[in-house]
């Protein structure tokens, strides 16, 4: 079961959104997020939602799959809403009981914040849905590379991310194996209260960590023997290349963002 998990939430499709350069997509997402925070009207959010809808249609990913990505943040969203509704004061009193009261300002800010969070998450999940993890790490490396001059190890960071992605399935498989081995010897991972269950994970985590360190050691040796000496002087099999539509997309987004912010 663990073998089949996919890393990240990338869904491969043959679409213009997928074909865009990873760097451009990261930059676009950043611009849009900044624009999102300059907006202070619901009509602005409406505009953004319409835009997202268009992008989703272009990406050929079903709306259902995109919305599924929002599930994990529902609790956070509800929490934000409740906090704002009850604690933000101002405007007319809509409802009051003893010391608890709901005022119009609170309701307004609550829904405002919730819309903002939803749109924010939709943007970022669209990025990860349409960009493979490898392209993403490559893109991040390129974007960070001007910072190399100030000592930011951009290529090393991207190498670390690549290796982390590579080893997630391997370590999951190993965790599965250790778990079964411990269960075969009578370990119980399923019963008891939360603390007992957390404690029962120790015999799983200790061997897993030890083996991860051993793997890291082996891997370092293997990388060294294949002439890895940091990012300096490395070439790549997959060069990222800007295409004309990357620039078109960027220009459209900048115009949109500016228009929305000054609207």
């Amino acid at each position: 079961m663990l073998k089949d998990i996919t890393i990240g939430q990338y869904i491969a499709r043959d679409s213009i959104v997928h074909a865009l350069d990873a760097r451009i997509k990261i930059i676009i997402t950043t611009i849009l997020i900044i624009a999102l925070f300059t907006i202070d009207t619901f009509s602005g959010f409406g505009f953004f939602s319409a835009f997202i809808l268009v992008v989703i249609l272009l990406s050929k990913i079903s709306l259902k799959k995109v919305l599924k990505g929002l599930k994990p943040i529902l609790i956070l969203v509800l929490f934000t809403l409740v906090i704002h509704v009850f604690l933000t004061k101002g405007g007319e009193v809509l409802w009051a009981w003893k010391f608890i009261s709901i005022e119009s300002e609170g309701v307004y800010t609550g829904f405002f914040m919730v819309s903002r969070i939803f749109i924010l998450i939709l943007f970022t999940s669209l990025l990860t849905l349409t960009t493979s993890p490898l392209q993403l790490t490559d893109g991040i490396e390129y974007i960070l590379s001007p910072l190399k001059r100030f000592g930011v190890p951009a290529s090393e960071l991207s190498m670390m991310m690549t290796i982390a992605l590579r080893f997630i399935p391997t370590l999951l498989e190993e965790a599965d194996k250790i778990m079964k081995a411990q269960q075969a010897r009578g370990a119980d991972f399923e019963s008891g209260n939360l603390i007992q269950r957390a404690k029962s994970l120790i015999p799983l985590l200790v061997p897993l960590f030890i083996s991860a360190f051993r793997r890291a050691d082996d891997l370092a040796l293997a990388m060294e023997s294949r002439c890895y000496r940091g990012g300096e002087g490395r070439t790549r099999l997959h060069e990222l290349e800007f295409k004309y539509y990357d620039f078109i997309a960027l220009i459209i987004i900048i115009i949109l963002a500016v228009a929305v912010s000054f609207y």
Partner: protein
Amino acid sequence: MSLIEINGVDFLYENDDSDRPALQNIDLQIEAGDFAVIIGSNGSGKSTLAKLLNVLLTPSKGEIFVAGLNTNNRDNTWKVRQKVGMVFQNPDNQLVASMVEDDVAFGPENLGVPTEEIRQRVDKSLEMVGMAGFQKFAPHKLSGGQKQRVAIAGVIAMEPDCIVLDEPTAMLDPQGRKEVMETVQYLNKEKGITVVHITHFMEEAINADKVIVMNQGQILHKGSPKSIFRLVEQLKDVNLDIPVAVEVAEYLRQEKINIPDILSIDELVDALC
């Protein structure tokens, strides 16, 4: 000069408390095009020797020359590592990328090979190990033997003169072991790549040009497979498993039955029937 020359090498691990060095007084030449097999039981120093060839370690005493380059000279480190590729025991712990082609490209990328040439080298190397068509696969979806062949392709893509395989078959099932051995033999015979194969399976030494038996950090014997397998009793003393055919032949010889030197079951069958 031989491709690899090891002259009077000792090696002692720094944090090692034992008084015996991991390697003692090793003298060895490996010629270009050789298929050399180093056999020895655990702790015989065979893996240490492999790491010395790739400059992952440098000798405490003595000198090693790879294609005329002295490994003690720090300036030569990267050149030597390009000339001597290394494949390790655990297939999971030596693949770097989450796609086969990216992993094979890792070595050439480090060497600064231009993009188009990397593409050619990747495809060619994968074809040479019989893994063409697996470019886009994730390593964790491959079998052990396939992973190990991808690791070999990753080394070949660096265009080395010699590949050192440090127990590449130890963690594989019989099928994977067969795949890897066939690949290695193909690369040696057809592509002329020098191979140093380190193992504790004596069967894998049968087709070698040169067999080196190691014990307790020293070279016990070196010579052709036939000359080595004649030393059945001595090999048993150093905890090596003798191939069944060789052992049977030895028993028959002790019973005064005239049997020529044989290595494999097929040869034994021919000799007896």
